[in-house]
């Protein structure tokens, strides 16, 4: 009752509180490039403000501003087509001065579930980029925006914000918001797919007039990971959840259409539709007028046409919604994929130590009784499958907690990496004969021991270890099966993971079925020690690989420290032979101490800053750190300077690198000694880069400039680079290059 009373009290005081907040919220530092927030999230579920990329209007003919909406956790606001119940954000600019046009941009939406309704919009936070054209360039612009939007979770609150932002006359210095506005601008779907490496392939209609299906195909320069499509059309047509079939770089969506007002027939043939493909941070928009049978899937992808590829029904939220049509793959097919994927994992390079442990266990069984062999291998099978079930439970748990999940995400955890490296080191030491452990000695104490053999629990845990080590590997079929499972319910996740486990355990299962294969091997003897030593090298190689992962993810210093500690572990074991037995008791303590230190290392040592100031060579192009002050001096010595501003979220920048800068004639040209390539990384806000962009009246990227004797102030290149444009600009920059490049 008390909370109810509070809730109602809150309801009554909303209006008053919003006004107080509006008055007190004015003190945050925003260098004048933002309006006040119109409320506080303590009182209302959402708030809005106007932000600008510049502190003044300068002589810009186009000003970049944005409406930023912040929502209470769990609340959503809507895209221009809400999908389910909802309404889009709208703005009234009444009262603004020196405002000619304001072009409102919609960043690509995400699909979410509001109480069982598939909806499209934005969760927690969004910035809508807006391009303002002033009537008079150089004159102050006063923006008065009434923003109407909807915030929904378990309740819906229609919001109305009156926002005021004055952009004074004077220099257009970049504001602290330039980077963020550009990040959201980068998410606005493009119509020219080349900008983002996506391509619209075609569309057509399938099915019947009372249950039509819109088929839409896209391709990409890189394999699709998690594509989704949003279809918009006349208001009388309602589009259901898309079903997707994926074949590497090709995806075909099948979207059911029905009459939004309950009519039997759906008038869709030839209707103008707008489709938006979203794949990670990139998005492409295409206009289509689909006709019956107007598109041939077989010509694009025989695999998809013949029912192959991956079928992922009911994108986004799990639910019924009749998504299990014939077009997608059945769960049975996916289970077969999972089984195959698990089997193929056995021969993949990252499973080297897995193989070696398996080989070892096979060797260990040489000359043993068939019964012993069978039970031992079955225990390993159980270990493998149990580990997969644990992984499945983790995935289900993380999914329920709203976390992003994927195959091998635990490798992003430094502590997990340290644990795996430590285990590998211990195994390697064991195989070198530096110390004797029965495999379970580390993890289990009451092992059921057979004379001289490895215990059942040992077999079980070696199986689990196999699974853990296999997780960073992505074999064919594997991602397909897991991708399917992740978009489905709990049952599917467990089924697919179990099938993967059975696949990975297949060699063990075979040996358990035909134990004679092993018992015919020679009895364990001195030859086995040699085999062990060879196999231990595979373990060390894996540990080194994990260290390199750690170096990339945490820092080189941390990885080196952990590596040194592992050498200490090996040395402690090695020295044990030379110290008195009494002191030998200190060995486990010393090892434990080193292990604890290793686990503490990622927390104790600083993480490396992104791209520390060094030269990075990618595809023969040597990118120097960004240093605009050095440019005049370089030009005076006859060099040509190519400045490339990029960011992880800037897909077009990445496309430019892969399609133009790092291939062919351009890469060879940029590799020349008389050309200096500077890379500025704007992934995170950076005042120097923002100020540099502003000197060209730019407040966003991609941005590339060529400096030379003939173009000392820099020649800017188009956003979407072409080899021709880059080579011409380089040639025009200096007389020597003009001759060299022609």
């Amino acid at each position, binding site marked *: *009752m008390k909370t*109810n*009373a509070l*809730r*109602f009290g809150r*309801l*009554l005081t*909303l*209006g008053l509180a919003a006004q107080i907040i509006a008055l007190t919220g004015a003190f945050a530092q925003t260098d004048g490039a933002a309006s006040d927030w119109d409320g506080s999230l303590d009182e209302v*579920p959402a708030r809005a403000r106007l932000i600008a990329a510049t502190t003044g209007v300068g002589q810009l003919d186009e000003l970049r501003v944005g409406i930023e909406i912040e929502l209470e956790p769990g609340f959503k606001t809507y895209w221009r087509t*809400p999908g*389910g*119940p*909802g*309404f889009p954000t709208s703005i009234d600019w009444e009262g603004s001065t020196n405002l000619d046009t304001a072009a409102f941009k919609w960043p690509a939406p995400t699909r979410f579930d*509001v*109480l*069982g*309704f598939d*909806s499209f919009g934005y969760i927690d936070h969004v910035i809508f980029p807006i391009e303002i054209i002033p009537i008079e360039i150089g004159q102050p612009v006063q923006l008065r925006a009434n923003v109407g939007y*909807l915030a*929904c979770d*378990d*309740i*819906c*609150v*229609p919001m109305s914000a009156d926002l005021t932002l004055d952009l004074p006359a004077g220099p257009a210095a970049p504001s602290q918001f330039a980077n963020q506005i550009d990040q959201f601008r980068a998410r606005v779907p493009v119509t020219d797919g080349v900008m983002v490496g996506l391509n619209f392939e075609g569309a057509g209609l399938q099915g019947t007039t009372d249950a039509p299906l819109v088929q839409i195909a896209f391709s990409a320069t890189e394999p699709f990971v998690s594509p989704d499509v949003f279809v918009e059309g006349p208001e009388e047509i309602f589009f259901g959840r898309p079903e997707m079939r994926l074949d590497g770089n090709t995806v075909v969506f099948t979207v059911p259409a029905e009459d*939004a*007002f*309950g009519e039997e027939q759906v008038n869709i043939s030839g209707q103008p539709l707008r489709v938006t493909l979203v794949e990670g941070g990139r998005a492409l928009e295409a206009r289509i007028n689909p006709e019956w049978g107007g598109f041939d899937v077989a010509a694009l992808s025989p695999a998809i046409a013949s029912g192959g590829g991956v079928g992922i029904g009911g994108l986004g939220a799990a639910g019924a919604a009749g998504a299990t049509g014939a077009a997608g793959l059945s769960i049975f097919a996916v289970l077969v994929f999972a089984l195959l994927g698990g089997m193929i994992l056995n021969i993949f390079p990252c499973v080297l130590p897995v193989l070696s442990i398996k080989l070892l266990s096979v060797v260990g069984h040489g000359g043993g009784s068939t019964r012993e062999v069978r039970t031992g291998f079955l225990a390993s099978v159980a270990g493998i499958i149990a580990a997969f079930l644990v992984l499945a439970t983790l995935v289900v748990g993380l999914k329920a907690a709203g976390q992003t999940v994927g195959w091998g995400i635990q490798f992003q955890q430094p502590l997990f990496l340290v644990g795996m490296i430590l285990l590998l080191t211990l195994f390697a030491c064991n195989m070198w004969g530096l110390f004797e452990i029965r495999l379970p000695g580390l993890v289990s104490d009451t092992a059921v021991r057979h004379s001289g053999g490895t215990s059942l629990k040992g077999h079980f845990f070696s199986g689990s270890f196999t699974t853990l080590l296999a997780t960073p590997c992505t074999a064919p079929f594997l991602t397909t099966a897991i991708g399917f499972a992740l978009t489905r319910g709990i049952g599917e996740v467990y089924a697919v993971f179990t099938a993967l486990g059975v696949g990975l355990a297949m060699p063990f299962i075979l040996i358990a079925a035909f134990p004679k294969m092993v018992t015919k091997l020679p009895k364990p003897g001195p030859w086995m020690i040699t085999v062990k030593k060879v196999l231990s090298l595979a373990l060390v190689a894996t540990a080194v690989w994990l260290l390199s992962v750690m170096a990339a993810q945490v820092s080189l210093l941390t990885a080196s420290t952990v590596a040194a500690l592992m050498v200490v572990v090996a040395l402690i074991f090695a020295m044990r032979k030379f110290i008195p037995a009494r002191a030998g008791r200190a060995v486990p303590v010393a090892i434990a101490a080193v292990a604890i230190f290793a686990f503490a290392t990622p927390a104790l040592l600083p993480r490396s800053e992104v791209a520390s100031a060094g030269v990075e060579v990618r595809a023969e192009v040597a990118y120097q750190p960004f240093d605009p002050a050095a440019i005049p001096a370089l030009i005076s010595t006859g060099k040509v300077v190519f400045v490339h501003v990029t960011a992880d979220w800037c897909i077009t920048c990445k496309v430019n690198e892969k399609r133009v800068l790092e291939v062919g004639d351009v890469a060879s040209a940029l590799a020349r000694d008389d050309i200096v390539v500077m890379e500025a990384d704007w992934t995170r806000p950076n005042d120097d880069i923002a100020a540099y962009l502003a000197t060209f009246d730019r407040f966003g990227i991609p941005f590339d400039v060529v400096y030379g004797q003939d173009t000392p102030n820099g020649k800017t290149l188009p956003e979407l680079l072409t080899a021709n444009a880059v080579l011409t600009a380089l040639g025009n920059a200096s007389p020597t290059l003009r001759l060299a490049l022609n």
Partner: protein
Amino acid sequence: MRKSVIAGAGILAAVATMLLFETPAALADVPPISGSVQNFVAFDEPIPASIIPLSTRDGGEQTFEDFRGKVVVVNFWATWCGPCVREMPTLAKLQEHFADNDDFAFVIVSQDRGGWKEIARFMKRLKLDFPNSLLDDKLKLSRPMQVRSLPVVAIIDRQGGEVGRLVGGAEWDSPEAIELIQYYLDDDGGHGTS
């Protein structure tokens, strides 16, 4: 009438208790709030509901005064509100449950700006029918009644006073919901005023 006798006896008992123990007694007669309607907030005193007229779908006008003498359950909603849409079918069942009770009226108030056309399409699609349907596209009623978020279901007593409301979705065809409505139907206006 029997209820009022009980209520009268209750008051007497309360006075007697207060005299005897000098403590303010909480009387047993409180609305049953549990389960799927646990977020219902009963007011200490009825708050007079606004009597601003709203348009009906046949072009007329109606106010809560037209339902005076009945217990009115009023649902504020909109087609753009997911949680509202979700509970709509359960409200239809609630309306049906009390259909034969002349003391009961069920009214829905839509905030849709798209007007009757949009509401009619929605009802057709979901195969629902609410005879007492009002349009509040300008928030003429929602504002004075402090309906800032949706959905809201409010209960108005026979004297035109709002006795409580629930903000957010609920299952209105659940036994708890029906018990709650029945409580106010059994009441003749003595609640919260003693």
